[in-house]
């Protein structure tokens, strides 16, 4: 299985648990087509910066709502933020996800806990919360895994908590 296949496989399994597999597969076909047609999705500056307005709490705290299934050093304490890696670290292209409830709007969001890689542990703001965490054989929901995979080094530096959408 090459790397891209592996990632598709991962995404597949990740999603399969949150929606009917049949519906998912139908949609995945479309997504794949879209991805092929869109070789580079622009990174939107407007959504670049950390917590958004409809949030509350301290993003450097383990209790912060997005951190409901995190396991590692908070990148916000390490020179990054909830959605950025510290300078010189490398974003893990794959990650585990959690589903956390935003207390401000009451909605459930899918949070992607991408690791930042290529440097030793940052050593600050370690958090381990396990809402919905699953064993390694369900990797997309397993925060025990070192997700510095597909990066140039598997050294683990810190973890982000990126909002990637609302959960159904």
């Amino acid at each position: 299985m090459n790397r891209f296949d592996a990632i598709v496989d991962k995404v597949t399994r990740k999603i399969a648990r949150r929606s009917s597999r049949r519906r998912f597969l139908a949609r995945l076909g479309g997504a794949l087509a879209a991805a092929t047609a869109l070789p580079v999705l622009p990174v939107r500056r407007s959504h670049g910066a950390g917590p958004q307005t409809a949030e509350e709490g301290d993003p450097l705290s383990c209790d912060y709502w997005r951190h409901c299934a995190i396991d590692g050093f908070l990148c916000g304490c390490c020179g990054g933020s909830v959605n950025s890696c510290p300078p010189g670290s490398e974003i893990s292209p794959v990650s585990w996800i959690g589903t956390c409830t935003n207390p401000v709007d009451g909605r459930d969001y899918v949070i992607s806990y991408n690791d930042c890689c290529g440097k030793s542990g940052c050593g600050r703001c370690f958090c381990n919360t396990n809402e919905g965490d699953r064993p390694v054989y369900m990797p997309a929901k397993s925060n025990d895994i070192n997700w510095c995979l597909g990066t140039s080094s598997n050294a683990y530096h810190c973890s982000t908590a990126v909002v990637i959408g609302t959960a159904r």
Partner: protein
Amino acid sequence: MRATRITEATRANDAATKSARHILAFCITTLGLLVSPLAGAAEPLKPEAIYVQRLGAPSPHWLILNDPNFLGNMDSKIYLIDADRNHMLGMLSAGGWRNAVEYSPDFSTIYSPETYYDRGTRGRRTDVLSFYDVATLSFLDEVKIPPKRGSGATLRAYSGRSDDGRYVYVFNMTPAMSVSVVDVAQRIVTAEISTDGCAMVYPSGNRSFLSLCGNGRIRQTVLGDNGEVLTTRFTDSFFDPNQDPLTEKATRLSGDWHFVSFHGVVHKVAASDAGVSPEQSWPLLDQQQLDAGWRPGGPHFLASHDSGLLYVAMNRGGPDSHKKPGEQIWIIDTVSKKRQQVITPPTPVTQLAVSSDDRPLLAAASEGPEIYLFDALDGTPKDSLSAPILGAGVLQFVDLR
């Protein structure tokens, strides 16, 4: 209880040490000429030689403490402690991403999966299975393995060894899952076997191992005599990974693997090279206990002894507390399926291990530098061990065969 001793070795076995001794001897000679005997009084202390210790015969009460060295985890360590006398026997430096070690059945050789980069955290990656001589705690050899070993929070089942000691299995994740098979007699990799997305390694005989699958099945990989995959088997789906997943923290009791689910259901899985079958399952917790929030939990909350006892660290954290350190350790009789005893350690415990002899010790690591010790049969507390580290990784008592 078998007594173990450190031999005062006078002969180190490598040239470097010999050369060191030459030079030291020279220094001592030189100094000897300058330090004239004192006139009068009792005889002064004699000049001493320096030497390198060796280990004596291994004991089942030797405890392997895997130290992932959380704040410097490309520089991990393996400590060896004699639990009978709270004595550190020695240490190995073991590269990046420590989980557990494998070793020869007589514990003469340790096999350690290790990850290295040319420049610590960057550059070319090299994964190896390192071979260490136990008597001298010295590096013997290494076998390069596919640079794909899985890593993360420490888990025992990232590697395994065939029951006859011939093969060591190393779990890979890239995130594609596979297992590297190392023939430790020939010191070669015989195969890298894709496990169809099933994870971890649970040896099930001389030529087979199990993996847990996300669809509630177990996969068994069977090897041929050349160490390559011969056949693959799957159980039926026997657990619900969404409703009540099994944790990866299994224990093997008289050859049968015992898995425990998030909500405390024990699943016994009989397995041999001939096949694998989930045999029975039973709950550790009744509804009242579940309602009170009792759950099994902790980084490695499970251990067993072949007398039929299962040891489970329990907390009252309710759902999602499967990694919370245990307030209590429950001793379960797997024959009667009844709780036989409850141990309340001084502080919550993270890792359990039970020695395999007939006067077994239960070791339970605190979140600090203390490892609590108990008589594993009657739960009597013994003097704690002082671990060299804060918050142990996987604990392994030496299991001599």
